[in-house]
């Protein structure tokens, strides 16, 4: 279970440092730690805020120009691109309907939800088999699962397109979703947590006559719920951000996802940057909302691979 410090990265006042303040006040009055140590004061503080402000402006600059453009009528976009001197919602509405962003969003959501649900279920099942069950051939199968982690998507798409084409799934939701319904990453992630379950727990359940499926449902799954949240978020984002695959497997406008749809919008409207930027804004909002709501899962999932070594 990741400790709370890792999950609190984005929380306002959760930064480490409270003990430091006590130390500075009580014990080190004679030999104070430099101001900049953890809590800058005076001019240093002003300087720090100024620096933070400038950097934040630079980081947000592309977002700023995009939002401004999406809210301006076409003839004003390039006159003062940095100044919001005109306002209209027509362009956003235009991108939504004639630019088909509404339809693309719907497709992306359907595909992402299907992929997320399946990835969570398939990962839990295979993780349970690898972590709790014992059976001949387990090691070989586990290695085969792990090996799939090393294969980049580029190496499989040429053939996957043939497979999906052969199944008649070009321009369908199945074609977009089925190749991604299971991941070794999810299996591995959940297996790591299942392995921490004490074996006494399973033994006790077995003595009480609880079978594996009952144990999985009533004991194992509730214990890994936080990790499942992280996996679900990653499955959703991974599916949402797919670019190469939808471009290959969709050639009918109505079946585009948000990403491949943005490509169509951009390539088809080179002279209308505000329309393209409005589409970009519409495409970015759902993910921004999801990430705001699920910050903790995001950090937990991202750090699962890194901080714990």
């Amino acid at each position, binding site marked *: 279970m990741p400790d709370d*410090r*890792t999950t609190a990265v*984005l929380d*306002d006042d959760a*930064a*480490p440092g409270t003990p*430091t303040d006590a130390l500075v006040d009580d014990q*080190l009055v004679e030999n104070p730690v*430099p101001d*900049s140590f*953890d809590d800058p004061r005076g001019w240093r503080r002003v300087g*720090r*805020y100024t*620096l*933070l402000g400038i*950097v*934040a402006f630079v*980081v947000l600059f*592309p977002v700023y*120009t995009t939002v401004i453009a999406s809210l301006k009528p076409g003839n004003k976009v390039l006159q003062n691109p*940095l100044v919001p001197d005109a306002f209209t919602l027509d362009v956003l509405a235009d991108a939504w309907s004639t630019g088909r962003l509404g339809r693309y969003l719907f497709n992306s959501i359907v595909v992402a939800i299907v992929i997320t649900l*399946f990835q969570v279920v398939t990962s839990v099942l295979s993780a349970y*088999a*690898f972590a709790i*069950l*014992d059976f*001949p051939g387990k*090691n070989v199968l586990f290695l085969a*699962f792990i090996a*799939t982690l090393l294969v*980049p998507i*580029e*190496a*499989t*798409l040429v*053939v*996957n397109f*043939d497979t999906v084409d052969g199944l008649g799934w070009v321009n369908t939701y199945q074609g977009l979703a089925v190749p991604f319904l*299971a*991941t070794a990453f999810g299996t591995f992630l959940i297996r790591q947590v299942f392995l921490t379950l004490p074996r006494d727990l399973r033994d006790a359940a077995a003595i009480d006559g609880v079978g*594996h499926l009952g144990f999985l449902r009533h004991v194992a799954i509730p214990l890994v719920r936080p990790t499942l949240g992280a996996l679900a978020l990653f499955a959703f984002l991974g599916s949402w*951000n797919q*670019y*190469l695959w939808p*471009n290959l497997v969709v050639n009918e406008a109505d079946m585009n996802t948000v990403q491949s749809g*943005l*490509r169509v919008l*951009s390539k088809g409207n*080179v002279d209308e*940057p505000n329309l*393209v930027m409005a589409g*970009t804004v519409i*495409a*970015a909002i759902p*993910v921004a909302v999801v990430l705001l709501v699920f910050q903790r899962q995001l950090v937990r999932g*991202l*750090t699962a691979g*890194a*901080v714990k*070594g």
Partner: protein
Amino acid sequence: MDHDARPGAQYGRVVADDERQRSRWADFPLAMAMLAPSAVVLGLFVLYPLGRAVWLGQQRCNNFGGNCRSQGFGQYADIFRSTEFQNALVVTAKFALLTVPLGLVLGVGLAVLADKHLRGIGVFRAIFSSTVATSVAVASLMWLFLLQPSVGVLANVEWFNSLFPSVKDPGWLQDPGTALTAVAMSSVWGGLGFTFILVTAGLQGIPAEYHEAAAVDGAGGVRRFWSVTLPMLGPTLLFVVIVLTTRAFQAFGEVDLLTDGGPRPQDSTTTLAYFIYGQNSPIKGDVGLQAGSAVLLFVLLLALSLLQLRMIGRRVHYA
């Protein structure tokens, strides 16, 4: 890999060997049933296509992907040596050298900057992590709007345009000398949030006592950064470098949207992934050459990860 090799009877009854064998088989049907959904998907859409791609890679087809003939596995060497593949390889390597160090330094810089106990720091943290919400397409289109020579932002800002005339003529994405750097900037920006979040989490995992001890010994902020922060961040930074490098070697969307692999005829931004799947790729439609190049990319990525783990991993200090 800390593979689970515990004795068979771990979760069954503890009994004699032969019965243990039997209990291993007892779980077999259930295990297969539970593994089947994942195994079918991974087998059909990861392992099989990889194997088939290795086979296709030695075939030569016509431009519509039909009429394929075996050329022998020497075709892999031919692909690797071809001018087009070599160009894509060099472009990709340059792209990695532009994006990985810059992305790492900026990400660490932002994280250190925001790792302070200040009122309102949460707002800045949210801003610095915000680009994690942008997909490749979203980030690339934002930068396309900034950089386009005719209908772009920077080309239409008077003072910027007079400071850097090249932004309008020929345009940074259109100039073979700057195109790859411009694409790299977009890519670094898009990856900034990811690096920031990871490094921030890493920073918060460093016990405050280490900094205090160093401060008591008279180490200033800069000294503490080099002697405490960086070494303690080792595993995080290793992970970030591997992920950023892998991403750089798979870069496709930003190239597809910003430059289409151009400017031509130099193909200055045709990365390996674009070479394989791009709209304007010279091997578009030739399944054999595509599969062959894709397998080479796979081998390259595998070698790179192993190399990084060995070279950097040896110096990383796991606390």
